[in-house]
């Protein structure tokens, strides 16, 4: 209990890391609900990996003497640029191929994941100077978050949360029944693009802050858990967000208490919450039938 109180004291040394984790835990599921509902969970695995490849590529260019920002020595900015660019290009390419209806969606996403994973390792291997920094970025060492990155995380994720809440009815409508949406004059392609951009931004920024594993976990597991116990889009989104935030908080506490790596701990907590909810639902079903 003392540790929990200490976590929320203004003097707590890791307070920025805690608040950043909490913010991502609360907001990523708001985006993730659409990955789950649109059956794009595979994309939730591939995009963080593609984002990681973008970070590794930016550092690789740096090693070759090609600087994305000649007067900018800040590694985070360089990494963010690589991450956003790679995710944007991948999303546009995957969305274009989907619209043309060629090939198998799962095949494309799987191939993109494999290529991005291989590229990340190769770019890291080709970077003799910044390997440790780079590996730390790819793992998402949120505990070492800088003040500027903390405020950037709050601003970006706050903006994403606002967009997801204000535009929820449009995103839900075009996702659920795009033909009816077209009939009523909605520009479905523009709404899809907007949703993909928000997903891309959440992933690109989140990977740098908390790493690919945790971003994928926060995008997918809380919505899967919330889907079991909610009816209606608002309750679904809000409960998914609450499960993400709770996982981030409990995960942070356990990580601090037993000196565990934060990302895997958060994901493990989210998985336990999902398992508890599924078990509770199953038990309730048995009781109703008995």
């Amino acid at each position, binding site marked *: 209990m003392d540790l929990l109180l200490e976590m929320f004291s203004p003097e707590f040394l890791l307070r920025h890391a805690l608040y950043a984790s909490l913010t991502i835990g609360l907001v990523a599921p708001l985006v993730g609900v659409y990955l789950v509902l649109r059956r794009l969970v595979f994309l939730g695995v591939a995009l963080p990996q593609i984002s990681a490849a973008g970070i590794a590529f930016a550092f690789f260019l740096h090693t070759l003497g090609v600087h994305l920002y000649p007067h900018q020595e800040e590694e985070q900015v360089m990494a963010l640029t690589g991450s956003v660019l790679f995710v944007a290009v991948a999303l546009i390419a995957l969305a274009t191929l989907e619209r043309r209806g060629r090939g198998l969606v799962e095949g494309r996403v799987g191939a993109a994941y494999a290529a991005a994973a291989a590229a990340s390792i190769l770019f890291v291997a080709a970077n003799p100077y910044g390997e440790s920094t780079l590996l730390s970025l790819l793992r998402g060492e949120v505990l070492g978050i800088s003040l500027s990155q903390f405020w950037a995380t709050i601003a970006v994720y706050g903006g994403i949360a606002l967009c997801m809440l204000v535009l929820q009815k449009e995103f839900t409508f075009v996702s*659920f029944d795009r*033909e009816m949406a*077209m*009939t009523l*004059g909605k520009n479905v392609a523009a709404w899809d693009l907007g949703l993909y951009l928000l997903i891309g931004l959440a992933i690109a920024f989140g990977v740098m802050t908390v790493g690919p594993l945790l971003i994928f976990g926060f995008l997918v597991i809380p919505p899967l858990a919330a889907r079991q116990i909610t009816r209606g889009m608002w309750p679904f989104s809000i409960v998914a967000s609450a499960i993400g935030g709770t996982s981030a908080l409990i995960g942070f506490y356990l990580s601090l208490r037993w000196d565990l790596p934060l990302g895997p701990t958060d994901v493990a907590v989210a998985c336990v919450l999902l398992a508890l909810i599924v078990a509770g639902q199953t038990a309730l079903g048995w009781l109703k039938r008995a």
Partner: protein
Amino acid sequence: MNPNALIRFSEASIGYRGSPVLEAVNLEITRGSFVGVLGANGSGKSTLLKTVVGILPVLKGRLESPMGRPRFGYVPQRDTLDALYPLTAFEVALMGTHGRLAPLSFVRKEMRERTLEALAEVRAEGLADRLFAELSGGERQRILIARALAADSDCLVLDEPVAGIDHTTVEVIMDLTSSLHRRGLTTLMVNHHILSLRGRADEVVWISEHRLVCGPADLMLSKEKIEEMLMAGGG
């Protein structure tokens, strides 16, 4: 030329991605009429409907709305809607009002009231709070019709609304559609249940071998005509 034509196709080719499914389509849908569309699987019935409501563009020829573009209440095949969405029946019906909403605006009270009215019109008020995915086929169909009504549509466009539904429910849905038509709503319906259109449709469009055969329902649904069209592969 029909002065009451709500929709008019003139020498139109319709299809997907530049490949025509139906060619030289000449068809008029009169305001206030009930038009049944029949044809074999894959003959182009749904393609015709999707072109009427503007989901697919006309590849060649013309599609006109002489009285101005109607407000369509589109009822898709219900199996195309994913059961994974945790939407309540009310939320699905409310989507019908979204055509009147500007981006960033919120659903207004009168939109909720119109949705409740539409649910009452299809006798589905009691389903409002239930999950759409958990409803029976007939119940889901009523919710989708309520959604089309909530759009304050001039023309109800239904794509196989009674496919996979038991006989009693087929009659309920057909009676409901008929009563909406009698209140002045132009109705265009793709239907595999040929006989359920008898006494309800005014006109029938039969699609066979990439062509449309149109005529009054009495003639098109006569025993002889049905046999002729089925022999020609139109059903």
